[in-house]
């Protein structure tokens, strides 16, 4: 058995689901398994956010509480700038993916590094905002919802950054190629999801 499984030897970019040993399965769908897995994962992520938005909905709309809680102010402008930062990271990520598709390694590495730095900046600004915002989650249910939603999103940014870091490390170690870049594409989808989710959070929590 060991002999069977060790024939697989080295594994490279994107082969997260590699089959060493078992005969290759018949592909009954054109959809890539990892892509599908990521999409399903995103569906359940959307539902987690959905539950937090349910809390928002009950506390703000159903119970008709003032938003934000009396005597508090949400920094719309800084958060808006931060939104722009996060959105631009989606663009640089897309650029990186296109670069590796064309085989331009230098642009690919630069794109990944920029994306990571932009994401990290977003998180930094967010934490800074928490420090200076002037209210704590314990002050009111509105404050709890604010911290809950933005914190949940922040946790996703942190997770996304970890994944991006992985991709970046692998990029600098010479992995991925124009033929084999699923390991960039699939994490990329997650990152775009995190960005889109932020736009929704920003609109509902800060703007509306």
């Amino acid at each position, binding site marked *: *058995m*060991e002999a*069977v*499984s*060790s*024939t*697989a*030897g080295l*594994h490279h970019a994107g082969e*997260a*689901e*590699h089959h*060493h*040993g*078992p*005969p*290759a*399965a*018949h*592909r*009954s*769908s054109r*959809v890539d*398994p990892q892509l*599908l*897995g990521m999409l*399903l*994962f995103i*569906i*359940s*992520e959307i*539902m*987690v956010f*959905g*539950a937090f938005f*349910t*809390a928002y909905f*009950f*506390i703000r709309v*159903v*119970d008709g*509480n003032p938003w934000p*809680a009396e005597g508090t102010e949400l920094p719309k402008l800084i958060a808006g700038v931060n939104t722009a930062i996060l959105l631009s990271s989606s663009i640089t990520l897309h650029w990186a993916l296109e670069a590796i598709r064309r085989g331009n390694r230098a642009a690919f590495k630069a794109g990944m590094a920029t994306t990571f730095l932009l994401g990290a900046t977003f998180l930094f600004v967010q934490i800074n905002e928490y420090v200076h915002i002037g209210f*704590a*989650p*314990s*002050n*009111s*249910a509105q*404050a*709890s*919802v604010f*911290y*809950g939603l933005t914190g*949940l999103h922040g946790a996703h940014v942190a997770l996304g950054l970890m994944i991006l870091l*992985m991709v970046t*490390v*692998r990029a600098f*170690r010479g*992995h991925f190629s124009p033929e084999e870049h699923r390991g960039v594409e699939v994490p990329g989808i997650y990152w775009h999801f995190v960005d889109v989710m932020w736009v929704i959070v920003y609109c509902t929590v800060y703007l509306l």
Partner: protein
Amino acid sequence: MTAKLRAPGWYRAALFILLGLAFSYALVGVVRTLMHYPDAWSDGNAITTVSLIAIPLFFLVGLGCFDYWFYYAAGRPTRAEDHSSHGATSWKAYFRVNTDHKVIGIQYICVSFFFMFLGGLIAMLMRAELAQPGMQFVDSATFNGLFSVHAALLIFLFVIPVFAGIANYVLPLMIGAPDMAFPRLNALSFWMLPMAGLLLTASFFAPGGAFASGWTAYAPLSTDMPLGQVFFTIGVQFAGASSIATALNFLVTIITMRAPGMSFFRMPLLVWANFSTSLLVVIATPFVAASQFFVLLDRALGFNFFDAFVGSGKNGSVLMYQHVFWFYSHPAVYIMMLPGFGIVSEVLSVKARKPIFGYRMMAFSLLAIVALGFTVWAHHMFVSGMQAWIRVPMMITTAIIAVPTGIKIFSWLATLWRGVLHLDTPMLFALGFLTTFTLGGISGVMLSMIPFDIYVSDTYFIVAHIHYVLFGGSLFTIFAGIYYWFPKMTGRMYDERLGKIHFWCTFVFFNVTFAPMHLLGLDGMPRRVADYAEQYATLNLLVTIASFALGLSMLVFLYNMVASWRGGPRAAANPWRALTLEWQVSSPPPIFNFDAVPTVVGGPYEYGVPGAVHGIFQSPTEAKPTPAGSVATSPTRE
């Protein structure tokens, strides 16, 4: 020694548990110091809460669930022999991280049955207390803990995962796949489970006792509970993450790995059932995760989602908890039932030697249940004080959801019609399921009627309903499935006589135990209370006696399983003369399931149709369908 501590396995897991403890202690201390909190380094509650999250994660890392991904992430060569050991050569393989779906399936089944027996023992302790009015063995706080842990274990650690285990074993075989789509994720999902179970069980040792707010953990009761509640809050997260990951895996496997020719409408209904269940899990389970996040945030970080006390001025909303919770937990009752529907479809068709009646309707009704299942959650909240206008729509949707369920019942009956019934143990359990589940469904429709529900809310009528659908429904199908696939999984036959004894004892004592609860409920005996009025004494004594007999009949099952696995007669490859693919390979199946990927040429249930074939093998010399009655050798287990 250091080599042992560095290689993935139990030694490293033990080391990592210690590291996790140290990590939690340090994290809490440092953060509390930074925040200038009092007694920064000695707050037991905070340390326990953090370590309940950290220790399972550290354990998983230590055991080696993440090794491959760590190598991958670092861009290092991933070595296949890291922990991609496939298949089992001895019983020890079941205690390691194994990526073979057959091993994982058995791991799932054994672990969840362990918790089934544990939860059952707790139930018997409760029945002992309830044998007479007044307080006998436990005080009321302990009793609250008992029923909470009982329900939480049986729901989150038994019914949901045991179905995942059965499907893990048979589903890839049924669709002609060599394994699941993501074997390593599969292993990780399994190993989260024992951790979740340990947390729930360990809550008994927490100061203040086990969590005592029921399996529903309503806020603000749960936010004010002693520390034991956190064990539930976090344990459920691990169980939930495990079932989401498994569901995702099933969906990808079913969609992308079917054998050639296996169109969606040639899939066995068990595959359909798990497809629908997995959809429910992926969409609904995040809600229970979120509800427990809220509770955890309220408890641990001083959030105020649920502080609705007017004087406090915090504006929290307790109804929100119930909406979020039931938006998961009503779909969850179908998560606990649909896989059983699948099992029963397999068993009935094979044992009646007839094609399943209305195959397409069976598949569509599953999807209808999935869709409708999301529209009925507030029938659990008729007396909660929610907006009155939600009630009637929920009543109507709840009554409607009985229609697809009814379609299934009638299709099964039509399948039996004029069939050649083989009344062996799996079939008996399937027939028993039909009877008891129908009764449970009827009490369900009664409960959907608002006036009736208000009358019996929080009485033993609910307990009767729950157990008719979960014990008489889910558990009977689980038994049917375990007996049915026992030969395939172990390569041995179980003892038919003991199986029948087990069925009849279970069936009779189940009904004697739970039927009187309907009457108790109608008479107004409240659920979840350790003591009761004199007038309920007679029926309660009867229930207690029957429940002990029911518990004893589970020992017959246990003995049968253990003894047959060790020394039962060798099983043929296809003892039931079934058509589905899992029966066309040896028992137990070869290590990679199929030597050649089979080709599907017909429907899965063409029993009694002359010359009908479901799957053929491309190279007939290597793996031809084994004729019934022949003795297959067992390659992996001796």
